[in-house]
């Protein structure tokens, strides 16, 4: 019951801010170079029938 009440009052973060040093390392950035990832997504999108769901997508191809 205490846990439920505590849950209603807010979830306790199980990874403390001072424990996030590894996650803050640049090698852990999910999109370290947006200009590059955006470009590659539009390379794929122009040549495949699928799109979206990757958190980002790009435009343009010259694909005729």
């Amino acid at each position, binding site marked *: 019951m205490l846990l439920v009440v505590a849950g209603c009052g807010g979830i306790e973060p199980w990874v403390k801010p001072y424990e996030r040093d590894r996650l803050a390392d640049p090698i852990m950035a999910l999109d370290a170079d947006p200009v590059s990832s955006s470009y590659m997504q539009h390379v794929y999108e122009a040549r495949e029938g699928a799109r979206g*769901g990757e958190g980002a997508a790009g435009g343009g191809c010259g694909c005729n």
Partner: protein
Amino acid sequence: MHRRPAFYLLAFLALAGGSRAGVLPDDRGDVMYHSYVGGGVEIDGPSVLVRKKVGSNFSFVGNYYVDYVSSASIDVVTQASPYTEQRNQWSLGMDYLRGNTTMSVNYTNSEESDFDAKTFGFAVSQDLFGDLTTLTLSYAYGDDLVRRSDDPTFQEPATRQMYGIGVTQILTRDLIATLNFETATDEGYLNNPYRSVRYLDPGSPLGYSWEPEVYPHTRTSNALGIRARYYLPYRAAVELEVRGYTDTWDIDGLMGAIMYVHPYGPWTFTAKYRYHGQNSAHFYRDIFLRPQATNFRGRDKELSELYSNTYSIRASYQFIDENKGWNFVKKGTVTAAYDRLDIKYPDFTNLLTGGYYVLDANVVQLFVSFWY
């Protein structure tokens, strides 16, 4: 012209930055040269991105992108004539941070000789549960105009609406994951005005003839993707990604990727493999049995069954150390990336050889990045 309108907005939301709602993205500038060579097509050009905070609550971003296209693709050489063209795209965006909430607006404009696209977008991100979770909602509206370079009177509109929801979750000290769902609806003129379909014609010397393709005027797609990145004990990272896709044209697709990141002194090396497979749209045929065989008809290889493999390597060198800086620049990197793209189309005949078509392409990116 572009065969299919693209997610300009969501691309720009990606440019808009990180996975943390309560922190504005870093001020940075990128200058990139990109090159794609494959299947008789050469596309290259620059992309320039500048992002800058104003005060403690606002961040502005702008991007200018150009494609110089020279095309003698399999579609062009069998149905038309080789051509060159230029596409210019620019984007402007703003992020507003208030507490743990970031609101983003943006606008993207793309122009070429026979295709214009405008996209307006809005997104809200909220950090939750002690900043372990970031929830993002996004919406975009796209307005396209399709023309023909050989017919000044031809002008057809298409519109698009996109809805996205994403969750980025810190799972452990070493593991972060993100889940994204996007649904998009297209309406209007969705096919390529230049392309045709083949049909059997015993009266033709080749045994077949051509007629214009006809696409449905609506399309709705759904995509669900998940990515997870793990910090390895010796300071390296590995990422897995999977995406499932389905749409009302009966295309079902599956994409999977694995990536490895390894820093070494001022260098960072990355290797990646990506796979994508899909079946064909219900109105796709390599060759139809007769003219006007079905209400909707298409022979775009992008809508056929295909299997795509990409092998990627990249190296990044940090030439301005973040602990020392240089004038107003805090950090600087230069990056070279190479991607080898192999796509097999088992239901699309290469009319030059008689076998099934295979596309091999080389993609190169060179860019310099500054943080200030």
